[in-house]
């Protein structure tokens, strides 16, 4: 879990995201343009850079993270060198010494000129890869590195949803990899929803059942839900295809024909149910174009099934804001390129003095609206 996050971009993108303490469930709220999505973009870019070697944007990050056994501090700066190519300028990874409150041990120390691990100088290594990636196989680095491999951002906008409901075959390779590596393998493949439900049904039947039950609870018109084969539908072929039966509707309705609200809800339910512990799951404006019944299940669902997972959720929806404990709010406010982020706990006492709904008080707060 990432427990604190600071970012400062370099020209031409000189955004600064003030240091923010993060907990398990984090509800990002703030006016449009206040920096919520920017925050998520910087985190996702960094994760893809560390875990997949994707191109990076110049910037400076300061992150603390907690794994099962350790707490880490990571300072990381990358940007263009004198020759104009990107490289790591500075990197320090520290781990808290066991039993100590204050004392951290330096694991990686790196500048453009020198690179050491546990205090021992290393030969020159790739200048455009972070030490955390280069040394990921080291036992002491691995847990920290793995945090970045478990950042999942689900896109609920059009293309993301189309890809999620598309038809796809189940390969033998998928099955054997899931059998031997479990959910992490499933997330590495991130198969379309019908395939995922098929794999859940075949190999994790308890999780499959929880997903189906939760889905039926949200949409009470659904009387049955199952993974069929596409040959039973006009689409043809031999692909697994999730389908539902609804009250008053003849026959099975396949996933691609469901409303986008139903698709989104099933997607988010199956995601949360199947996420491996230690994952970071990002939900960016999930509520867009959804009816209230497809929104109001989420807060309780996160609490019931989100154990061991960190959630970063952006929203403008009054129901989500009202129903999440204020201490899980992160309230964004932007002045120019500087983004201030206040913890919801700071608002709790003050808002507790009025009977107005928390959402109404937040909308009227000058920190939120920018208008005093």
């Amino acid at each position: 879990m990432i427990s604190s996050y600071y970012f400062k971009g370099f020209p031409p993108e000189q955004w600064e995201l003030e240091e923010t303490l993060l907990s398990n469930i984090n509800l990002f709220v703030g006016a449009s343009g206040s920096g919520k999505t920017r925050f998520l973009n910087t985190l996702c870019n960094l994760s893809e850079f560390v875990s997949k070697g994707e191109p990076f944007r110049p910037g400076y990050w300061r992150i603390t993270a907690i794994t099962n056994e350790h707490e880490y501090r990571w300072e990381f700066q990358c940007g263009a060198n004198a020759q104009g190519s990107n490289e790591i300028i500075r990197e320090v990874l520290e781990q808290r010494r066991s039993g100590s409150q204050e004392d951290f041990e330096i694991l990686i120390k790196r500048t453009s000129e020198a690179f050491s691990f546990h205090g021992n100088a290393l030969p020159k290594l790739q200048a455009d890869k972070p030490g955390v990636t280069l040394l990921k196989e080291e036992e002491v680095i691995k847990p920290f590195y793995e945090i970045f491999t478990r950042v999942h951002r689900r896109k609920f906008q059009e293309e993301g949803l189309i890809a999620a409901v598309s038809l796809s075959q189940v390969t033998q390779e998928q099955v054997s990899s899931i059998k031997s590596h479990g959910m992490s393998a499933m997330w590495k493949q991130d198969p379309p929803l019908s395939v995922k439900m098929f794999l859940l049904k075949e190999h994790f039947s308890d999780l499959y059942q929880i997903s189906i039950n939760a889905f039926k609870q949200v949409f009470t018109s659904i009387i049955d839900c199952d993974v069929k084969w596409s040959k039973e539908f006009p689409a043809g072929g031999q692909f697994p295809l999730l389908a539902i039966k609804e009250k008053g509707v003849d026959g099975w309705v396949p996933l691609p024909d469901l409303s986008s609200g139903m698709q989104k809800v099933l997607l988010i339910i199956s995601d949360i149910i199947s996420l491996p512990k230690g994952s970071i799951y990002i939900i960016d404006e999930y509520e867009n174009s959804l009816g209230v019944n497809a929104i109001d299940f989420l807060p309780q669902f996160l609490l019931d099934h989100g154990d061991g997972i960190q959630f970063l959720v952006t929203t403008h929806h009054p129901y989500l804001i009202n129903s999440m404990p204020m201490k899980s709010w992160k309230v964004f406010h932007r002045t120019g390129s500087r983004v201030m982020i206040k913890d919801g706990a700071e608002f709790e006492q003050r808002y507790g003095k009025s009977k107005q709904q928390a959402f109404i008080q937040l909308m009227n707060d000058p920190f939120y609206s920018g208008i005093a």
Partner: protein
Amino acid sequence: MNIYLVVEGLVGEKQVYAHWVPLVNPSLRVVNFIDEIVNDHLIIYAGMGYPSYLEMIRNGIDDVKRNAHIDRLVIAVDSEDMSCEDKYQEIDAYVKLCGAPLNYRIIVQHFCLETWALGNQALVTRRPSDPALQEYRKEFDVLGRDPQLLPSYPKENLNRSQFAARYLKKLLNEKHRNITYSKSNPRALLHDKFYYSVKTRFEKTGHIDSFDNFLTAFI
């Protein structure tokens, strides 16, 4: 005197009240949080157009009852398609149902805040260049006629509130090319002169008579 004000609209309506109320009663100062209310303070909660406005009124009544130093609850609503009287009765009945505080006032903006703003005669250009504005003035000239009598405008599929907002925007664009108006950005209305022009219109002509409630609610 400390006043607790609930307005129905977006943050822009709150901004207009925050600017205009101290012009009615200069001793009042706007605060942002209920725990900042001490003496001669005004706190404003905007409903942001969400449908829970009646719940906001009920919560406002609770707040006023629980805080002895808040002297008055003021509620501001648009009458929209209702008559001013009917809207007043509707809100008054609800306030009484919720156990009204001893001291409360209801401001019915008949039929919306923009109707009052259309009372500003200084906004009206004699010969507008915008053909749409020329049409609007032919249809209903707010310079001479009471803006509260503005009809709907079927030609553009606008009810009277929408027509008032569009009319106001056109007048402002005609007068000041770089100033626009929207419900969330009412910058043009946040000037003392604007308020005094509206007040003069009411006092001299008796037009926009629902503005009278605004003038008396904060004194």
